């Protein structure tokens, strides 16, 4: 049992507007961490997972978006969860470890015994209390959440080797060319405050090396621009790699789902994963109906209370409908995200698609993707305020904001 003196702080890295470009056109209107999955902002899922950590004192969101972009969300979520959530803005990107280190004084204000560090753009069940227990059993400075993936896909991630009995992290390498291990880094960590010392060491070493170069070598002048600034510290290459095999880092393997949310296609897949998780965690958020008084609901569906869905519509599986959306008579929605203020008119069909804020889909129109989440136009995406006129078909397309489509389009990116 943890003592009542023990306190935990969680830090969620949310990135900034120059990151996450692969998430366009959806990130043109909203910071990617606030894009809704299963009807809740992406960052809401790790935040609500943090709520399950015993003795949680504070949640910090660290990123380099403007403060005002997160102000509204941070205040409402603090009220909702009864845990203080604060946004800390970096003046520039410091890397995953550098971002943490940059705010070390703020983070240490609560004198936490443990610090969680989570990336925002991953989708998993966030087994944080279980990780913390494992970490206390292991001892050491930190525990990394890991998952087994197929050998073919492992090289897109940080591959690592762990001791099968002690779970100690023995070796770590980022996106290797050859196969090292099918165990990968999930981007979720728990540390003791000793982590700040480790980051400081990297930073100091780098500063020394830079100084040495400056005085001793002409060659260094040319590569100096390429060298990383001393306050830019990556957790994976700069901390995990060198500390592997030194009895300081351990692993905790999740047997649940895990995905990275880099592209709009993946957001649709992750929305489905979170919706299915709601079955266990928040069944009250899932819609139901048999087509008599309210729409016919198939599988896992989220409908915002302010959205209006006609009883003759058929919705699901994997559909989330955001605030003030209007879904007309005889509409069919399958595997899609319908954002705020969207109107879907009579008899229209939307499947494997994301329909952006304030967009409108006309009568008997069809907005469809093939449903392959891994290819660029495998789902159809309508940006903000796109109008699809009556009877028009849009298949496997990405449509940037404020466009009107009056003829059918296939396999196109429409600027």
């Amino acid at each position, binding site marked *: 049992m943890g003592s009542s003196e023990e306190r935990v702080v969680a830090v969620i890295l949310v990135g900034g507007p120059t990151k996450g470009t692969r998430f366009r056109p959806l990130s043109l209107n909203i910071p990617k961490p606030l894009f809704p999955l299963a009807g809740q902002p992406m960052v809401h899922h790790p935040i609500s997972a943090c709520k399950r950590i015993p003795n949680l004192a504070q949640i910090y969101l660290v990123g380099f978006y403007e403060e005002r972009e997160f102000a509204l969300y941070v205040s409402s979520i603090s009220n909702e969860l009864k845990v203080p959530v604060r946004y800390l803005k970096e003046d520039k990107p410091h890397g995953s470890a550098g971002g943490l280190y940059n705010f070390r004084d703020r983070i240490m204000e609560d004198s936490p015994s443990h610090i969680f560090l989570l990336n925002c753009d991953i989708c998993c069940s966030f087994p944080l209390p279980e990780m913390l227990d494992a970490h206390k059993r292991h001892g050491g400075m930190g525990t990394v959440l890991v998952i087994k993936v197929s050998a073919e896909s492992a090289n897109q991630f940080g591959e690592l080797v762990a001791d099968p009995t002690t779970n100690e992290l023995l070796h770590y390498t980022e996106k290797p060319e050859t196969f090292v291990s099918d165990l990968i880094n999930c981007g979720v960590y728990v540390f003791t405050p000793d982590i700040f010392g480790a980051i400081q060491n990297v930073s100091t070493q780098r500063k020394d090396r830079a100084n040495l170069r400056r005085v001793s070598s002409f060659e260094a002048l040319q590569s100096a621009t390429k060298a990383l600034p001393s306050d830019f510290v990556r957790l994976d290459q700069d901390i995990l790699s060198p500390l592997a095999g030194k009895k300081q880092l351990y692993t905790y393997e999740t047997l649940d789902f895990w995905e990275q949310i880099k592209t709009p296609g993946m957001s649709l897949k992750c929305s489905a994963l979170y919706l299915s998780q709601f079955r266990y965690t928040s069944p009250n958020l899932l819609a139901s109906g048999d087509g008599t008084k309210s729409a016919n609901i198939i599988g896992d569906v989220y409908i915002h209370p302010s959205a209006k869905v006609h009883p003759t519509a058929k919705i699901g599986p994997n559909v989330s409908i955001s605030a003030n959306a209007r879904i007309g*008579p*005889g509409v069919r929605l*399958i595997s899609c995200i319908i954002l705020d203020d969207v109107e879907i008119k009579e*008899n229209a069909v939307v499947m494997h698609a994301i329909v952006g804020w304030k967009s409108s889909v006309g009568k008997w129109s069809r907005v469809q993707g*093939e449903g392959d989440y891994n290819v660029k136009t495998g789902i159809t995406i309508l940006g903000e305020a796109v109008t699809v006129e009556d009877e028009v*078909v849009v298949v496997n397309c990405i449509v940037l904001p404020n466009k009107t489509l009056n003829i059918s389009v296939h396999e196109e990116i429409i600027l």
Partner: protein
Amino acid sequence: MKALILVGGFGTRLRPLTLSVPKPLVDFANKPMILHQIEALKAIGVTEVVLAINYQPEVMLNFLKEFETKLGIKITCSQETEPLGTAGPLALARDKLIDESGEPFFVLNSDVISEYPLKEMIAFHKAHGGEASIMVTKVDEPSKYGVVVTEEETGKVEKFVEKPKIFVGNKINAGIYLLNPSVLDRIQLRPTSIEKEVFPKIAAEKKLFAMVLPGFWMDIGQPRDYITGLRLYLDSLRKKSPANLAAGSHIVGNVIVHETAKIGEGCLIGPDVAIGPGCVVESGVRLSRCTVMRGVRIKKHACISSSIIGWHSTVGQWARVENMTILGEDVHVCDEIYSNGGVVLPHKEIKSSILKPEIVM
């Protein structure tokens, strides 16, 4: 008076529909194609129709027996055992076409749909006193066809130019002829072409005259032209007998709906749609520029455009069928499926979307 209809072969260009019935029996505007011609012939007093056919004559005759009595017209077949071109079948049917009356006879091409101004053609034929009359129609791209060059005032044919590279005229052979029995003396029983071998000789003797076909003309031997042909046919119906067209707030443009077909609430039908006997169109369905043949069911909220739905097929809820999709007989498109130009052979179930035009065997 007698008439010969050139029916020809397998009708491969209109597959998969012609995998179920011979081409002349494929429905067009809720009626087998050949009935449009037989009815027009009957209307101007033709008493006997000979079908020049080289494929499945039994099927044709069995079917047409019913119409023989109904229309009071004699229908017989003249079966080629080898393809005889466009003139050979006339020689083969010689005995059926010639009688003591000495009257001219009509020759029609079964692929062609028009207003069949046959009465006017008889008057034209009598007026010029030549041996043969042909209908010509003006087209935008004459280079694709055989062009008929005529004397502007009299209509006397000067020459035929097959697929001209430079412009010689815009009138092409419309496939409707009125011939004196003496023309048969010019045709040998062998594979031969009427346009290349017979007509040029008659023209050389200044006995061939061409009449410009009033109204529309379309060769509906392939799906795209079939759909265009329906539009032209319905336009003409609007002018001639608008009472045959459907009316109501759920109808846009020219639509024919068979009296036994049922249409649900909240549908929008048209323009240029034909719905055949016994069809069921459920609520919230959108149909435009399409033919829905006998016994088809279109389920709720489906949307169909520029397509042909073959006999007894079904289209599922929220399905989308468009862009020259041709469903053969008894094809079932499952709920929510999208077909973009799918050409589907008979008796198939379509369970996954067809995103690009392709043939489903």
